[in-house]
């Protein structure tokens, strides 16, 4: 389990939300939320789009490529923002990395 701690997000990371962090659309408040232990986080539209791409298969680099293409935006700026947001989530313990299959 200790491997899930102290994640350093880079473009090579393949992040995924752990079981205890649930991305969900809140019908009552009409907004996306992340449900986490005794906390509710409210990601904005772009954070939601990033998190929906975090499937443990795509790398952060691939996610950035996809967003840069979609928004015809400068890749470097997007990479900085995406890594910062994911690192923030990781520091709070609400992001994990896909584990290598060693079997």
């Amino acid at each position, binding site marked *: *389990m*200790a491997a899930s*701690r*102290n*994640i350093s997000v880079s473009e090579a990371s393949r992040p995924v939300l*752990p*079981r*205890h962090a*649930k991305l*969900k659309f*809140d*019908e*009552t*408040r009409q907004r996306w*939320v*992340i*449900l986490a*232990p*005794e*906390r*509710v*986080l*409210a*990601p*904005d539209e*772009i*954070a939601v*789009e*990033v998190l929906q791409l975090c499937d443990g298969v795509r790398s952060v680099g691939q996610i950035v490529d996809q*967003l840069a293409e979609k*928004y015809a*935006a400068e890749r470097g*700026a*997007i990479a900085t*923002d*995406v890594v*910062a*947001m994911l690192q*923030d*989530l*990781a*520091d*709070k*313990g609400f992001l994990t990395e896909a584990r290598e299959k060693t079997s």
Partner: protein
Amino acid sequence: MSPTLTDAHQAASDPSDGLAVLEQRGSTAETFGIPLAVLAELTHRCPLQCPYCSNPIELDRGGSELTTEEWKKVLAELAEIGVLQIHFSGGEPTARKDLVELVQHASDVGLYSNLITSAVLLTREKLSALADAGLCHVQISFQGNEPVVADRVAGLKNAHARKLEVAKWVRELDMPLTVNAVMHRQNLHQLPDIIQMAVDLDADRLEVANVQYYGWALKNRAALMPTMQQIEETSRLVEQAQARLKGVLAIDYVVPDYYALRPKKCMGGWGRQFFNISPAGKILPCHAAETITGLEFLSVRSNHSIAWIWQNSEAFNRYRGTGWMPEPCQSCAFKEVDFGGCRCQAFALTGDAGNTDPACTLSPMHEQIFRMAETEAAGNNSRFIYRNFSGGTLETGGEHGA
């Protein structure tokens, strides 16, 4: 593009780190949507006898508890009106034989479930069944870092060893773990070891919660009240550990408000963002609210909906917002910051829940209370009055704990 996350529970955060606070977003004292999270006290029964228990002195008997079907109906209603998280608490929630069924039902209706437990009644099999039912997070209370102090405070032999075992199972089952450590004069010296214990248990989060003094804790204040030196040392230790363990262990810190200059924003303000449901089904603004006499709290067994009780009942509206406030609160610049502090504490210490919380330096009672705390902390009364259904039992030495 600048993706941000907003935290709905934190009182404050630095916008420069990409986080803001949902609760402050367009929120004023007069607006109150349905809470994001609700505390369900399934039972007041508990194998532990902690002298600072947050349950009322008048405990609900087993026979008055809501039935399985009643709780299931409540859970469905909560999800329907927009509650997102349920905290199963008590007493000891695992004393309910239907806990797995209730967790499963919470999952079925879309609620995120937290279990707040003393852990001593859990088997690995039971914990595994709870995980399968969709339990999302487990919080275990610890009374110390080793059995001599911990079992004595809990008033139960072998409690500490069992907690350690259950905590390991929680992580083996890949559920996030919070260690809740309630701190007071007789265990604050163990704080560094408690922090290390939480790291060793691979906990995600540690709550260092100084005792809040109402109900059972008020009865035991002389035996529990820390000294000012202890509090200063504690704050220093927590700050150091928070910096050292960033990304490894999150540490939440609750200071004892007797030693604060301003009162805590209790429950985020009365009836603003939280309610709990007592074992017998009463909807309460906080778990200690029944200590305030003269307020009538409505039950889920009444013919009102939960949303109606939250929005319209007299008890919720009595101290909601800022309109009820007397001076010095009414003209205070901080009235929408702390909402006048804690109503239960104001009632317990001044006899009127509508007074300024004496934890505030602006309260005319503050000096007197602070001096009393210092005197009690310096005294040598360390015997506990243990929590039970008969109004408490004085510690006799040797028979409790290890």
